[in-house]
């Protein structure tokens, strides 16, 4: 609401977009005949062009990280608590770039876009995209904006993987990488949960092998179920217990009712809302990108060698109750960085909120981000 946009918000923002007309070859070998990236920026790029920060989004994220699109918006961008004047990623100092990754469903070219070669919607024929592809296209976008080197590339979860890939693929173009609730690769259990999500989607009769859009239907039940499963893995047992306990919707047990416990109705709500806003093919693509991520693989499974050429300084933060990407996974990254002789600061934040912690304004976590970003600002006299 108009009068309610707080002072420490970046305020009203407008999504921008850049069209790349030449084709690019993706990691899979597939060629994409041009594409469009939707993005937002907050703050101002200074004359030295040394205050740019890239925000990489996670599985279901997008370009709208901070501020409001209209005065009527009820909710700000997905990381608004962290980006803005005086916030940990302080837009008084930094120029923040946030984009919707290739294959996304929020305006960037993806499965819901038209394939110019055929004139038809890509749907399931949209090529496989990887973290490496995202980093390549993020770099292309940065160049169009006159950013040669990022002061920091920041991401949580899948976003952290992009930040890590940046330091490997473009070592001279990133000064600091902030990897939050991240992992150097998915575990079998992680992949299993992703496969349950994908199977839920493809089992929906409306999925039609991914050609649902052309048939005017949407596999909402499947996508909703995928989100419900995913959501459980983002929270912790304690977090769910604290929030819902065994609270009943009606206040008393009514055997045989459909939705009995509060947590059930919460999950259904999450699934339903998400399935109306997100594209099923994109969800499949993004979970695949998670599964494939493993930068050590092309270095004989040696993460130390994979990170050997990195020139960035690292902040690695994890959360005690995160069982999806547990602190031990972050430790693996930290240990590899130390073995490779890289500068790294690593913290494990006490939190009961599970993997989702990386999106929450946990005081110690935000204190760490604030201090680290403050140091980056001081290094640059921002």
């Amino acid at each position: 609401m108009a009068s309610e946009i707080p002072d420490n918000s970046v305020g009203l923002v407008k999504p921008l977009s850049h069209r790349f007309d030449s084709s690019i070859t993706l990691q899979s070998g597939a060629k994409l005949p041009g594409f469009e990236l939707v993005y937002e920026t907050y703050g101002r790029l200074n004359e030295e062009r040394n205050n740019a920060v890239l925000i990489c989004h996670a599985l279901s994220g997008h370009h709208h990280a901070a501020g409001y699109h209209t005065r009527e918006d009820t909710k700000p961008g997905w990381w608004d608590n962290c980006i803005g004047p005086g916030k940990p990623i302080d837009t008084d100092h930094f120029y923040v770039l946030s984009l919707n990754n290739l294959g996304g469903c929020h305006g960037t070219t993806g499965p819901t876009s038209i394939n110019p070669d055929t004139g038809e919607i890509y749907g399931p024929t949209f090529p496989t995209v990887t973290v490496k592809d995202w980093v390549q296209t993020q770099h292309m976008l940065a160049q169009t904006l006159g950013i040669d080197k990022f002061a920091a590339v920041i991401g949580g979860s899948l976003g952290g993987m992009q930040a890590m890939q940046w330091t490997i693929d473009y070592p001279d173009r990133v000064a600091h990488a902030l990897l939050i609730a991240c992992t150097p690769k998915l575990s079998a259990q992680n992949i299993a949960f992703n496969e349950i999500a994908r199977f839920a989607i493809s089992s929906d009769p409306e999925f039609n092998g991914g050609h649902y859009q052309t048939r005017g239907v949407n596999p909402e039940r499947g996508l909703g179920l995928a989100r419900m499963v995913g959501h459980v893995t983002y929270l912790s047992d304690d977090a769910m217990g604290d929030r819902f306990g065994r609270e009943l919707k009606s206040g008393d047990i009514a055997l045989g009712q459909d939705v009995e416990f509060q947590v059930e109705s919460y999950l259904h709500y999450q699934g339903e809302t998400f399935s109306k806003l997100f594209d099923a093919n994109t969800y499949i693509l993004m979970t695949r990108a998670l599964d494939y991520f493993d930068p050590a693989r092309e270095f004989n499974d040696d993460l130390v060698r994979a990170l050997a050429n990195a020139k960035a300084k690292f902040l690695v933060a994890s959360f005690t109750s995160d069982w999806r990407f547990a602190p031990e996974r972050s430790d693996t990254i930290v240990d590899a960085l130390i073995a490779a002789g890289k500068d790294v600061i690593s913290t494990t934040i006490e939190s009961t909120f599970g993997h989702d912690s990386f999106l929450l304004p946990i005081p110690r976590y935000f204190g760490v981000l604030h201090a680290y970003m403050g140091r980056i600002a001081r290094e640059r006299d921002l």
Partner: protein
Amino acid sequence: MREDLRIIANLIKRDARVLDLGCGSGELLEHLAHAKNILGYGIENDADEIAACIQRGINVVEHDLNEGLQRFTDKSFDMVVMTETLQAIDSPHQLLDEMLRIGEECIVTFPNFGYWGHRVRMLTSGNVPVSQPIPHRWFDTPNIRPCTFLDFEQLCEEKDLRVIQRLVFSSSYKTGSLMKRFPNLFGAIAFYRLGRAL
């Protein structure tokens, strides 16, 4: 500058890889970076100290030393330093092994519980000593493994750890001839540089 930092800096080669166990706010690593261009990492588990390291831009890993150092590979550091922390470790004997597994050498300092002042206090008042290097009372002290020069050297001998150098200091890191002759009685701070057995 703190005297112990100067002394440690003198013992560290230029460009060395240094691990500082219980690095606090990163003062030693910052000094070593300037004085000796080292590549240093600190281990710390106190949130406020870690915050101070972040402010300083000092490499720090949040980790509890009582969980051991298994995550670090053999001989991955030139020097592993642990100042005035040994007495607060669950299994100091195992940690010493670990320090010399991952480091070529290590420096260990700790308050000498055999210092004459403590002995007098024990004898006269009968209380567990409280002093500047060990400022806590018995029930809330982190110093759960009090030891003396004598105790430590006995352990080194049992474990076949090589004492390369021993220094004796007052609580303000001054030295004197009396404490050099009778370290266990007149030394407040024990300072050891250790290596693996030859």
